Structures are given as C-alpha cells and as structure tokens.
C-alpha cells in the first residue's frame, strides 16, 4: 500500500498544475487514493484523507463519497479525528442529506462529553447545519447546557439555541426562562449570546416581547456600564468598549422600545449619552452611533433626541469615509418620510453626493434626492437631476428618468416647464424611459393648447437634429402631424422664428420613415403624421400622395395596411379626408382606451385617446354605410364626430344607438317609448338626463318573430355639435318570440343645446335575409319625454 501523500504535499502538487486538465488529472488520482483509504478502514489515515477531500471539495470537485466518512470520524474517540469529522460534516452534509441524521446520536453523546472542546465541536456543528428534526431531538440537551455550565459552553449553547428557534419556532418557550437569567452574566461572550437570543425570541413572539420589556432597565444598566467604563484591553476596539455588544444591545432596545412609551422613556437618557459621548473617528464608533441613530428614530423618542439623530446623520454625510456617507444616506432614506424637514436641511450635501465616483453612493443619493423633491425646490432639484441624468451610469438611467417624470408630474410649476423637462429627458435618455411615456407626453401636450406652437417648434428642431431616440421621434411625429400648420406659420412668441417650409417638414418625416434606426412603431407614427399633414398644408399634397402610395407595398404589414387605407382615403373618400384628419380634442387622462391597445381595425368611431391606429380603423369596411348615413342627413352636413368608444369592449361593427335626446327632463320612472315597429322588430327607448347637457339613452330591441334575429346592428348620426358616445351593445342576436332583448346605451353631450335630431339605421338578418331600415327623430321637445319621430 502506497503511503498517503500528506495534505500539504497534495496541495502543493495541485497548485503546481499548469493547466486545468493537469489539475483534473491530479485530482482524479488523489480522489482514487482517498476512496481506497476510506475502504481500508484505518482511522488514522482516514482523517488525513478526509482533510484532503475537503480541500478538493473547496476547489469545486464532487466530494459526496466522503459523507459517510464524516459520520464515522465523528464517532471516533480521538479529538483530532472528531475535529476533522465535524468540519467535514459542516462542509459536506446539510439538512437535505440523509447522512446528516446519522450524526445526531454522536452529537448527543458529545454534548455530554467531559472535554469542553468536544462539546463545543458538537454545538458548533449543530448550530451550523442542524436540521429541524435534529434540533427537536437535541433541544433539551441544549437547554440544560444553557443553565449549568462553564461560560465557554454557555455562550455556544446560547447561539445554538438561537439556531434551534430559527429552525423550530415552537421550541421558543423552552428557552425563554433561561434567557432572562443569562442577562446577569458577566462574561461578554455569554452576554452577547443572551442578547441575540432575546432579540430572536422577541422578534418571533409579541407576548415574549411584552415580557422582556421588563428587562429594559437592566439592559440600560449594562449599556451604561460599557459606555462609561474605563479602558479594558480585552474588549476595547479603537476606544470603544466592546462595540459588538453595544450594537446588539442597542438593537434589542430598539425592538423593545418600538411603539411603547414607557420603554422608550427609560432609554432616552442612555441614547442621548451614547450619541454624544461616542467617538466616531473609527469604524467601531461610527457603527455604534449608527445603531444609536436607528434606535432613536424607531422608538417613541422625544423630539430633541430625534433632531440630535438627524444631525449625526448630517455629520456622517460630510465624512470623508465613503462607507459612512453611504450608511447615512441609507438611514436618511428610512426617515425621509417621517422627518422630511429635518432631512431637507441636508439637501445640498445629498445632491453633491450625486457627483461621487462610487455607484453605490450615487444610487443612494439618487433615491434620497428624488424623495426630497418638493414644490418649493422643484426647479433647482430638477436642474441637478437633469445634469445627473446626462452623466449617470447606465444602470441608474431608467430609475432616474422615471423619478424625474414622477417629480415633474407632481410638482411642475408650469406646463411649459413640464414639457421642456420631458423633452430634455427624452433627448438625453430616450432609450431608457418606460413605454407609457409617449402616450403620457402626448396627452400632456394636448392639454396645453396654448403651447402647441412652442411645443411643435421645439420638437421639430429636436427631430431634425437626431432621430435615434425612438420615444422622442414618436412624440415629434405625432405633434408635427397634428400641429403642422402651426409649425408652418413660423411665428411663435417663445422661440426665435425660423422659417420652416412644407418641404422641410416632409423631408424630416420621410427621413424617419426611411431610416433603419426607426422602429416599426415609429414609422407608423411618421406615416400617419404625413397623412395628417395633407389637410394642414396646401402645396405638397401630391408629394404626400406619392409617399403614401409607396408604402402601400411595404413589407411591414402594419405600415402596408395604413398606406393602403390612406390611399383609399385619397382616392375614394377624398371628401371625407378633412373630417377624418381633423384636429383631435383634448384627451382625458383616465379614458379607458388610454393604453395602446389593439384595434383590429374594426372600430369605426375613432378613439381619441389612442392616437395611432385610430384613423386607420376608421376606414374599415362599414365605411360605406357611414357615408350613406351622412348622405341621408344631407342638409345638416354632419361629419361623423370622433367620439370616444371604449376599446375594451369593441363593437363588432359600428353600431349607434338611437336614443331619444331629451332636452332637459327629470324623468322619475323611466318610461319606455317605442320608436320603431316593423317586421317583428321593435325598438324602444329609455332616456335619462344626467346634467343640463348630458343625456343617457338606452335602446332596447326585441323580436316577436318566429326566428332569431342575428347580426343586429345600429348606427346613428347626430348634429354637428352634439357628441355621441356609444357603449357596446349587449349582443347582436335577438331571440325569437320576445324571449330576449338587446340593449345598447348611448351617452350624448349637447353643450351648445342645439335642437336634437338623430337618425338611426337598423340592420339585421332574419331567416337568412338582410334587412335595413332607418328611423329619424326630428325634434325632441324639451318638456316631454316622448320624442316625435318619423319612421322613414
């Protein structure tokens, strides 16, 4: 049998390997050796082999075949073998392995061993990898050791108890009585362990917490002793006496004093003393001060103490040590909500920290700065934040951008400032903003009607400078399409005048369309904008026509569809073009279709809160029917109002409800009036007046024929100034024999209080045959609920 290579020799050999492959070879040989050693059964050699195996394991190679060896070695009577066996157990066994249970018995025996060092091995291993079953088995032993032994064992048993409680919370009651008595120990190690144990007990059980509140005076006493004690070489760290223990006691006091006035009062003096007397020139002192500040802020301390705490944090902010600056910002973040004014005083320093080299510090400074933005300091803070945005590391960009948007939304002093800020962010970090930014910005721009000219000029200039930032380009295209006429006017009070010709604008839009940098969505924006301009400009309509027709054969399906439909708008429906591409009204922020949903092109009533696909949707197949309806109304010349239709429930075809518009009635019982009765189909109306100008009308359709009526749809037209909003119908099939009804609600807004008229077309299939009919309601007397109508 070859003599085994000593551990250090093996390590040397492994380290001398020049390549990974060589190392693997050496390791394989060694492992083979180790395995044969394990089989041979000589305990002396066994422990050497296990030590080698542990080294190999640390290098990352598999070592599971050593698990049983650990069990065997732990059971050995020799200390050196036990030591390495327990180390192996902690490294190779965890509670998931079955072998771990096998050592429970050995641990139990070793816990009562005569040598305290053997006991300590057992305790350490149990605290490191003890599973719940092992803990349950051995808990009584640990409790015994807590009470009746030497401080060396006591401190270890205490921490072992902490581990047991973490694994098996129900065993907490077992340790509660002993924990209290441990506080009277003199040994710092035991004391520290006791404080940890009590902390764990209090965190898990509120009743135990109440019980341990009585220990607050004792803890305060111990702490005072530490703070005022003379120099003790054993526990001194940089002038602080046992900072480890001090920090743990402060943490326990924090838990005990939280939300409790008596306990908090008892600690006020102590905290003030610690806060003022601790020397924070070294890390140990700063650690104690830091914990003190956290405690002060978390209990019901008096205001003077809180001010003291915030001042300490402020002092930390100016410290040269980066760690301490970082710590102070973390703490300030926690208290910025509750003690906002106190933190505001340090705003200058915090903003300076934005310029620090360290990314962690920058991140903290950013979070804190965003929390400190208020209506008072918005302008100066935003300046700083925008500067930061242009130089900040990429991982912080999107957080900064969204923070800036939130702050701008809440505190912007003026609309123009708001728009400027958003434009600035889009130019610097357009790639990192969230998707909702584009519709949000568009909505904001529409509400600032007096700034349309200014906005479109600024956006145009940003566009010609750079078309890489997609969100910026999208907003710019939308605005140019919408307000192109203002752009051409040239004159705008807030910007120096620059003459922009129609060709310039079309050039810009074409560049966006053709650029490979533009995303498909952006190109869609550009195409629609080009189309809209056809009604805003006068000379270059032909150019627009040619652009649009080119894209009729584009590979991108969305663009192709749009181009084809716009083409159709030029050719067949040129008379409608002006109406379709009219300026949009102000969008309501919370309108249901606010997010860019999918229209599938079937919704005829354009949804104003969705800028893009709307016009495309307008021109889908039932367009012909709409035109006819308008023709019918002929003289009144009512273009189809772009009324918001909620896209969440898309109508299958455009249906309009014919509902009575009542001039101004309070209708108590809502009578149902029949307006149409033919071929078994009857329509009834219920009107409900909401305000002076708004009416809600419900149409009810029922069917008295033998067969179901299918594909039932309604269309309506109203005079120009009246706004119509149709809700989705309850269905489009009316069961036969009057067994069911279809209802549809329409909201009408008549701000100008013109005389109301409405024309309704009904379309349905019955027994396979298509039917269509029209009803016109000519006048709605304001007094009566009954409309006067004439079926055509």
């Amino acid at each position: 049998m070859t003599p085994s290579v000593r551990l250090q020799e093996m390590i040397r050999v492994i380290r001398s390997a020049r390549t990974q492959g060589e190392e693997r070879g050496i390791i394989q040989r060694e492992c083979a050796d180790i395995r044969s050693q394990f089989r041979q059964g000589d305990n002396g050699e066994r422990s050497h082999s296990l030590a080698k195996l542990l080294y190999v394991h640390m290098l990352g190679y598999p070592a599971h075949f050593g698990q049983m060896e650990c069990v065997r070695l732990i059971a050995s009577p020799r200390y050196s073998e036990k030591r390495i066996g327990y180390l192996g157990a902690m490294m190779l066994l965890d509670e998931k392995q079955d072998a771990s249970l096998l050592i429970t018995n050995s641990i139990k025996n070793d816990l009562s061993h005569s040598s305290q060092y053997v006991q300590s091995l057992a305790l350490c291993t149990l605290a490191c990898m003890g599973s719940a079953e092992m803990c349950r088995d051995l808990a009584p032993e640990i409790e015994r050791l807590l009470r009746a032994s030497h401080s060396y064992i006591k401190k270890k048993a205490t921490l072992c108890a902490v581990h047991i409680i973490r694994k098996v919370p129900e065993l907490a009651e077992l340790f509660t009585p002993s924990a209290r008595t441990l506080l009277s120990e003199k040994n710092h190690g035991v004391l520290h362990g006791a404080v940890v144990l009590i902390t764990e007990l209090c965190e898990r059980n509120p009743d135990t917490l109440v019980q341990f509140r009585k220990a607050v005076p004792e803890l305060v006493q111990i702490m005072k002793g530490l703070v005022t004690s003379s120099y003790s070489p054993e526990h001194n760290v940089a002038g602080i006496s046992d900072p480890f223990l001090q920090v743990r006691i402060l943490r326990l006091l924090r838990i005990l004093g939280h939300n409790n006035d008596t306990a908090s009062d008892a600690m006020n003096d102590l905290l003030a003393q610690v806060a003022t007397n601790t020397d924070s020139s070294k890390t140990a002192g700063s650690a104690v001060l830091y914990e003190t500040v956290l405690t002060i802020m978390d209990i019901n301390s008096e205001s003077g103490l809180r001010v003291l705490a915030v001042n300490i944090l402020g002092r930390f902010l100016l410290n040269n040590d980066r760690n301490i600056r970082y710590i102070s910002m973390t703490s300030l973040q926690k208290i910025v909500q509750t003690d906002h004014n106190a933190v505001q005083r340090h705003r200058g320093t915090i903003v300076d920290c934005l310029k620090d080299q360290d990314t962690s510090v920058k991140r903290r400074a950013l979070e804190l700065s965003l929390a400190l933005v208020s209506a008072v300091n918005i302008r100066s803070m935003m300046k700083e934040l925008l500067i930061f945005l242009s130089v900040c590391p990429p991982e912080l960009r999107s957080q900064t951008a969204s923070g800036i948007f939130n702050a701008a939304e809440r505190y912007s002093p003026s609309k123009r400032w708001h728009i400027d800020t958003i434009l600035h962010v889009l130019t610097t970090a357009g790639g990192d903003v969230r998707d909702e930014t584009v519709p949000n910005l568009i909505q904001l721009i529409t509400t600032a009607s007096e700034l349309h000219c200014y906005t479109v000029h600024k956006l145009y200039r940003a566009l010609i400078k750079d078309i890489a930032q997609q969100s910026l380009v999208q907003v710019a295209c939308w605005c140019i399409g919408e307000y192109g006429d203002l752009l051409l006017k040239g004159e705008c009070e807030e910007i120096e005048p620059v003459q922009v010709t129609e060709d310039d604008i079309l050039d810009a839009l074409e560049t966006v369309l053709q650029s490979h940098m533009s995303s498909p969505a952006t190109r869609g924006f550009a195409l629609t904008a080009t189309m809209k301009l056809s009604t805003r400009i006068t000379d270059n309509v032909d150019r627009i026509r040619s652009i649009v027709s080119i894209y009729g054969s584009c590979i991108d399906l969305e663009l192709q569809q749009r181009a084809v439909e716009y083409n159709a708008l030029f050719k067949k429906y040129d008379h409608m073009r002006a109406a379709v591409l009219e300026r949009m009204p102000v969008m309501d922020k919370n309108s249901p279709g606010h997010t860019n949903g999918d229209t599938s092109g079937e919704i005829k009533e354009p949804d104003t809160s969705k800028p893009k696909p709307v016009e495309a949707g307008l021109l889908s197949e039932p367009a012909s029917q709409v035109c006819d309806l308008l023709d019918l109304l002929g003289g009144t010349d009512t273009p189809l109002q772009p009324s918001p239709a909620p896209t969440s429930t898309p109508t299958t075809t455009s249906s309009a409800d014919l509902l009575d518009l009542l001039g101004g009635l309070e209708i108590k019982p809502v009578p149902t009036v029949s307006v149409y009765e033919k071929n078994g189909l009857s329509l009834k109306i219920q009107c409900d007046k909401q305000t002076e100008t708004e009416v809600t009308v419900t149409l009810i359709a029922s069917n008295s024929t033998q067969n179901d009526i299918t594909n039932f749809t309604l269309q309506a037209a109203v005079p120009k100034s009246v706004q119509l909003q149709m809700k989705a119908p309850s269905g489009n099939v009316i069961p036969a024999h009057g067994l069911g009804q279809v209802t549809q609600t329409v909201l009408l807004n008549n701000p100008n209080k013109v005389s109301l008229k409405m024309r309704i077309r009904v379309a349905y299939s019955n027994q396979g045959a298509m039917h269509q009919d029209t009803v016109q309601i000519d006048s709605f007397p304001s007094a009566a609920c009954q409309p006067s109508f004439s079926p055509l």
Partner: protein
Amino acid sequence: MMHFLLLFSRQGKLRLQKWFLPLPERERKKIVKDMTTMVLARKPRTCNFLHWKDLKIVYKRYASLYFCCALENQDNELMALETLHRYVELLDKYFGNVCELDIIFNFEKAYFILDELLMGGEIQETSKLSIVKSIEASDMLQETMEEYMSKPAF
C-alpha cells in the same frame, strides 16, 4: 444574521467558504460565482457595501484576499466590517503575519478559528484574547492526542 462568508483571491479562486444557511450545492456555486464577479468588478476607492437580491453584501480586501459576507436587512454593515477585521486579526495572531498561502495550506485551521468567532451567523465571542486562548487549548488537545512526534496534525 450572516448568511455566508467567503474568502477568495484576486483571481477569483475560493479559499474559504462558510455557509450559515442550508443551500443546495448548485445554488452555492452560483452564489460564489456571483459574489466573485460582483466584488472583483468594484473599483478601488468605492465603498464596501453592495446590494444583492435582498441582502447586503459587505466586502473588504486584505492584501490579495477578498473577505466577503452577506447580511440581512437589520444587520449593521459597519459592524460586519469590524467582524471581518476581527477575523483577520485572529488569523494574524495565530499564523504570525498571515498571508494567503497560510490560509491555503492550513485551510482547516482557518475554519477552526472561524468557528470560534462566529456561530450560526452571529458573533459568539467578543474578546480576542478569549478566542486565542481557546484555539491554543484545542490545538494542545489535538497535539496530545497525536503521538507528540514530529508528525504534523494532518
């Protein structure tokens, strides 16, 4: 409580790993890799604290070794720095002017010393003197168990 403590070299080789939570082997390997990448990427004069998942990572470089530990939210980071420093002091006292090679060739002793300082993720002894005494006593126990010959411990 501390979740784990790692020691690794400037090249990312692991020299010591102590886990205070049960985690499967694959998970541990991944964490070690994440830690080494994150910590080694830090520039020289940055602060010693990082955020990783929901843990606070505290690291400090001593000569060629990085000492890295993971804390929970309520733990005091500055105190963790002190703990790491305390461990280095203990190693220094034991090995006499400790260097990385000492830890490589005597890794099991490094573990024994760590087990006297930390237990279950918490500090167990705050007195340096006391720890040094216990280590010496355990070593004596081991020596007497051996045949007092020049045969080394392992």
